[in-house]
């Protein structure tokens, strides 16, 4: 058996559990401890680097197992996770995305950074979600999303 390439940490809360998944979700991934939780499960995905097809299968199986007995909240979805959510409609089936990371680049100095976006707080309440203005922490210049906002936020429309 190959060694796990991911890490799963679960802490019980009054409402259910909070979990942190990091690394690569692949053939070594076992989310059954998470699937056993009832109530509200907040899953932090900010340190997920890659999800391959086998990791995706495990993930979808977890979401299906949670359906009806748990409310799944996705927190801090990393850029690779957002890419997956935009490509595979059912990769967030039944779950709610609370926050995610988005790639920004400064138009003046070229500094690139991944910025945490809170869906409720940062994207506005209009029909077309908009990213908040983001000054560059290095030079104060204007940062812009390196992808098109409509495309990057596609997964929110499917939620």
């Amino acid at each position, binding site marked *: 058996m190959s060694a796990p390439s991911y890490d799963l940490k679960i802490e019980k809360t009054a409402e259910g559990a909070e979990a942190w998944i990091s690394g690569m979700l692949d*053939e070594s991934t076992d989310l059954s401890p998470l699937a056993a939780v009832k109530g509200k499960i907040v899953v932090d995905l900010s340190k997920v680097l890659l999800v391959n097809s086998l990791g*995706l*299968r495990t993930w979808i199986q977890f979401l299906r197992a949670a359906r009806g007995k748990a409310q799944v909240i996705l927190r801090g979805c990393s850029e690779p996770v957002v*890419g997956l959510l935009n490509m595979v409609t059912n990769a967030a089936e039944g779950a709610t995305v609370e926050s995610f990371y988005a*790639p920004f680049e400064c138009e003046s100095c070229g500094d690139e950074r991944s910025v945490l976006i809170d869906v409720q707080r940062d994207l506005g309440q209009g029909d077309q979600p908009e990213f908040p203005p983001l000054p560059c922490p290095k030079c104060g210049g204007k940062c812009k999303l390196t992808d098109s906002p409509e*495309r990057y936020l596609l997964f929110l429309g499917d939620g």
Partner: protein
Amino acid sequence: MIGGRVEERPVLVVHDSVKARKTLTRILSAIERPILSAEGIDGGTAHLAKGPELLFMSHGLFLSEAGQKFLEAAEKSGAESCVILGGPPNRDEMSRLFQYTAFSNLLMDEEPVLLADGVVITALKLLRGDIFGLEKYLSWGVDKTRRTLKRSDQRREIVSQLHEQMLSLGLGRRIASMAAHVSDELMSNAVFHAAVDEGGKSVRSDAPRTDVFELSGRDEAELAYACDGRFLALSVTDRYGSLRRKTILDSLARSTGSNMNPRPGPGGAGLGLALVLGYVTHLVFNLEEGKRTEVVALFDLRRDIPAGAPPSVNIFERHRKGTEQ
């Protein structure tokens, strides 16, 4: 054309857009063959008597009933088919395209002129039968890095190194992540799906992907990658050559939907190709039955390609056309 021309059979372009026809004619002048062009099926049929060797047509005409009859006639006259998709990407149309056994090459871009490289390379590969090698898609002289898989679990280490190298080349996190993902899926296929016994039966496709075993001789798979600033290309080659065109088409047709249902059990999830299609700009299958399969994945670095946009796809079979030079 270097090395002289063996035949002077023409190339036929059948496209309903005059702009596309003009652009394709200009691009195809690079291969030094007579070019015939027609707006519709009737015009194309009239040209079949001239014995075209290659056929380029729009996806709309390809998918029409008249287009299918025309393709049958073209195939009987010895023409290889090549599809150009001119309009905005449409996954439903893609899925339909893959259900036709006549399909082999889909080159896609909203702007025909941006297909220049793909059109010329596809035409030359079909005409010459020289199908292998990712370097055909890159600028001349670009060095490629090669890694050989000698153990099944080495995949993870190679993927991590590739990811780091992509970042060090300044390709950005998005491309690095997509390249890592694609190489992982393609290597997994090469390790678990390529190996067959003497009867052609898969020996590992149902094996748990967590199994660790040595890979030697024919079982070794090779990852190669290179970048010329325009494209990042990576390829995975196995030495079994067990992948069949029909398997690819079935898999492509299944993979063009966005709602994915994983296969249960310890083997593959059946989602790998769908994910790969979502990340690459161009996917090329080079098949030599019983000898080797090479899958080339290209990422266009020249402009911002939407994640999940349907890519171009080629399926080349070496035994179907000539000998390699």
